[in-house]
């Protein structure tokens, strides 16, 4: 009888530990995740503006590496947003950097070609990527 209650207690404790771990599950670390799709800013925007529904299915929540020329870098406190040029006049691809990556954003200049890796959340006027990191900047 005593043995059984000890077993139950142990199982219960393991359960609590797993539950607690799941509750505190860390956010996706973009830097460590492999790239799902690599493409240029122009293609990414063109896919969204031609058929948003299919583009949503294809790109949302995916780790995307996007290549393009920097048109603007905007700062707001500890946040930085990099817009990439596309062949479209109105839209662009806007990448919001992570806090850790923010320090590196000073190395980037307008007109420079960069590859940024982040998570695609969708399309408003621009395609939006969040939690971005800078992969390479020549």
């Amino acid at each position: 009888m005593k043995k059984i209650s000890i077993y139950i207690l142990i199982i219960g404790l393991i359960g609590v530990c797993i539950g607690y771990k799941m509750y505190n599950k860390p956010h996706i670390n973009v830097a460590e995740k492999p790239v799902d799709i690599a493409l240029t800013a122009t293609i990414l925007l063109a896919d969204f503006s031609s058929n948003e529904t299919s583009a949503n299915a294809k790109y949302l929540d995916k780790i995307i590496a996007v290549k393009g020329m920097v048109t603007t870098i905007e700062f707001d406190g500890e946040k930085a947003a990099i817009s990439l040029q596309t062949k479209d006049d109105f839209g662009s691809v806007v990448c919001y950097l992570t806090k850790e990556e923010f320090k590196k954003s000073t190395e980037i200049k307008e007109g420079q070609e960069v590859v940024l890796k982040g998570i695609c959340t969708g399309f408003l006027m621009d395609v939006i990527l969040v939690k971005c990191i800078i992969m390479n900047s020549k």
Partner: protein
Amino acid sequence: MKILYTFFVCLFLVSFTNAQERFLTKKGMISFFSETPIENIEAQNNQVLSIVDASSGKMAIAILMKSFMFKKALMQEHFNENYVESDKFPKATFKGDIMDFDNITTSEITLAIKGNLTMHGKTKEITIEAVTKKTDEVIEMTGNFFINLSDFDVKIPSVVKNNISEKIKVSFRLYHKTYKK
């Protein structure tokens, strides 16, 4: 339909490249807060698109549900997968009229905005109060309001009923600038 929509969006955009009365932000902030004795849940979206037409006093806001960032990854996962079903309904929109827009000045005043909020496939008419001020280049709006989850058909499983408030406080800070390409 899609083409027509794109056409109108383009037309809309073209029309305000030369009109000074359009004010826009792509980096507005909307956050929400659920308070219960068990836990508080908070998420922030910093990629809010909002447009104000100063000639008519109309405004339009669009947000991506997946852009809401939570402290806990698990909460964010549940929010997107179970509650707002962001794969099915990726956006929330608000279209409304700013009441007494002519009263807007360079000092802060509170104005009411009446319009339709669409989220999770449901639309509801709401009236929001916003502290606003306007200069030649900027229209600033801040405020908060409450929404009921049941109005938008968001179902909370009974297991976590005590963890999530039925009334959600939504706060916003929109810093519109005159639009120039």
